[in-house]
């Protein structure tokens, strides 16, 4: 029993390590070239953003449209730190500082606004992220205003991307499974009942908001250091919407859904680069299609698990086994059903056999 438990507990870290080294090797041999590395970085940053917003919107049920604002705080804090201390330690300090400042901003914003509900909260958080953006534009002397900040060095490599992304996902997933996380979920389910069973709803709303902002800050710091350049307008309203799209598409309340959606969307959008003119139209159509066929998001509120994969495999095999018969009967009905009465009959017979 104990051995089995240990084995199970080892699978995940082992899988992660293997993934890390495979990608590292692929980068070393330049199979993953600079272009694909950029996509990889985008995916990792989007995962951090989506998972942290999912904690606020998916698990705690607080509709926030200000995630890009918190991201920008992390980005600027990290960029300014790196400018002063251009070493990897400067980068680490920048990530920590950026995350802390973003969390603090989350606290300041959360305390007054989290008494609002639904649409009203969305509007308030939207407004606050705009305030942050305008503030960065106007703090010329520090942030170089609308012209933005350039960095000379890049400290983020695959190692840092991997470590920070995995850290974010593990910490937030651990939080969600704990009693504190359940308290957050109960707020989403029924705020009045949550209060009645002894949960300090204000406290847990603000806590979720702060944790979410903290990791948005981490994502911002990684972004700044990876892409060399930041300007306030990168973190506008549309960025917040982008993150929300990932969360909704993956499934509100599903962390693995957020991860999946972040990867899928980054891949789709990079694939569409070759159709530059109609790229956004295709992107929108794809989004609509996904939402039509999976209204609860890719994963609903479920998490990806080994049991689920096994189930999926079974279904796929059953589907594939049924395939030849289906195809055969379809082909028969097409080939034989060309006008003559007798042909029609045998076609329908064939279908029954299939």
């Amino acid at each position, binding site marked *: 029993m104990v051995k089995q438990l240990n084995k199970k507990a080892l699978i995940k870290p082992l899988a992660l390590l293997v993934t890390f080294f495979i990608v590292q090797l692929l980068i070393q041999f330049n199979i993953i070239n600079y272009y694909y590395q950029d996509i990889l970085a985008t995916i990792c940053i989007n995962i951090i953003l989506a998972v942290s917003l999912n904690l606020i919107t998916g698990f705690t049920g607080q509709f926030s449209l200000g995630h890009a604002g918190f991201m920008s705080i992390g980005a600027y804090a990290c960029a300014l730190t790196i400018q002063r201390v251009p070493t990897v330690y400067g980068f680490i300090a920048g990530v920590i500082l950026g995350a802390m400042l973003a969390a603090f901003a989350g606290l300041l914003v959360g305390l007054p606004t989290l008494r609002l509900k639904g649409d009203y909260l969305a509007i308030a958080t939207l407004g606050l992220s705009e305030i942050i953006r305008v503030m960065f534009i106007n703090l010329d002397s520090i942030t170089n205003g609308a012209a933005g900040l350039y960095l000379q060095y890049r400290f983020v490599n695959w190692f840092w991307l991997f470590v920070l992304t995995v850290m974010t996902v593990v*910490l937030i997933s*651990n*939080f969600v*499974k*704990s*009693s*504190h*996380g*359940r*308290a957050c*979920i*109960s707020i989403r*389910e*029924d705020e*009045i*009942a*949550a*209060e*009645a*069973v*002894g*949960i*300090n*709803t204000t406290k847990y709303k603000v806590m979720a908001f702060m944790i979410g902002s903290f990791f948005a800050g981490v994502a911002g710091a990684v972004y700044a250091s990876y892409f060399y350049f930041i300007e306030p307008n990168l973190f506008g309203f549309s960025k917040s919407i982008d993150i929300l799209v990932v969360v909704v598409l993956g499934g509100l309340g599903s962390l693995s859904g957020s991860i999946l959606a972040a990867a899928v969307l980054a891949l789709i959008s990079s694939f569409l680069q070759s159709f530059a003119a109609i790229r956004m139209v295709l992107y929108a159509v794809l989004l609509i299609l996904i939402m039509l066929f999976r209204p609860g998001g890719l994963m609903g*509120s479920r998490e990806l698990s080994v049991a689920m994969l096994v189930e999926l495999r079974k279904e796929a095999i059953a589907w594939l086994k049924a395939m030849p018969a289906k195809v055969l009967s379809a082909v028969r009905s097409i080939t034989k059903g060309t006008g003559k009465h007798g042909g029609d009959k045998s076609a329908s017979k064939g279908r029954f056999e299939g």
Partner: protein
Amino acid sequence: MKLLEAKKLTKSFGGLMAVSKVNMVINQGELVGLIGPNGAGKTTVFNLITGMYAPTSGTITLFDGSHGKTIHGLKPHKICNAGIARTFQNIRLFKDLTVLDNVRIAMHCSVKYGLLSCFLHLPRYRRDEQRIIDESIELLKIFNLDGKMDELARNLPYGEQRHLEIARALASRPKLLLLDEPAAGVNPAETAQLSEIIRKVRRLFNLTILLIEHDMSLVMKICERIYVLDFGSVIASGTPDEIKSNERVITAYLGEDAIDA
């Protein structure tokens, strides 16, 4: 020995006096009924006691031995942690969560680990989570719900949802349990079962219970004392037998003519 005392409790919504100058005492270990016609202010009294509303005037005191603590105007979660739990007239379960989760959430105030343990899943987290699960299952066993702990609450039959709500209320280890129409919409057989369960948990948890109910057979059978509300005021209080023959109560329920007839 007093457990809860309300003095001149008043709540007005604009010009409407929902509850006016209600005095009420609930003693340790009692099972007290609160009845009255529709709109008499019964649920408002519950909402005042549990902190959903702050009273316009008046006081509510919760006693711990001889030491009394005023609780009116506190936030609901503080009142819950002080030892008063409730159920709702229109069931308010966490419908999309499992039966087990519904109970586990209500155990939140007994959790001993902090944020660090919950982020890193330290040994203290594992121990405490195991305790929460064990205690939740114990609690669900009383209601015969332990076999259904992985089902979503919304998939339970109505009567079991009522039971689960009581189980959830008990999970926060209250001294005083407020039941808001536990038998509403429940068939006679289930009502009988319900009164059995109320008796059982009262004995097991050493509970004091205040109960709103329209099902008079249930109220008269299990309550030791009854308060009758009408238009926000207490019009009578006493044992079930006293209430049954009280003229003001009959008038309130059936109208003036009922007595002459």
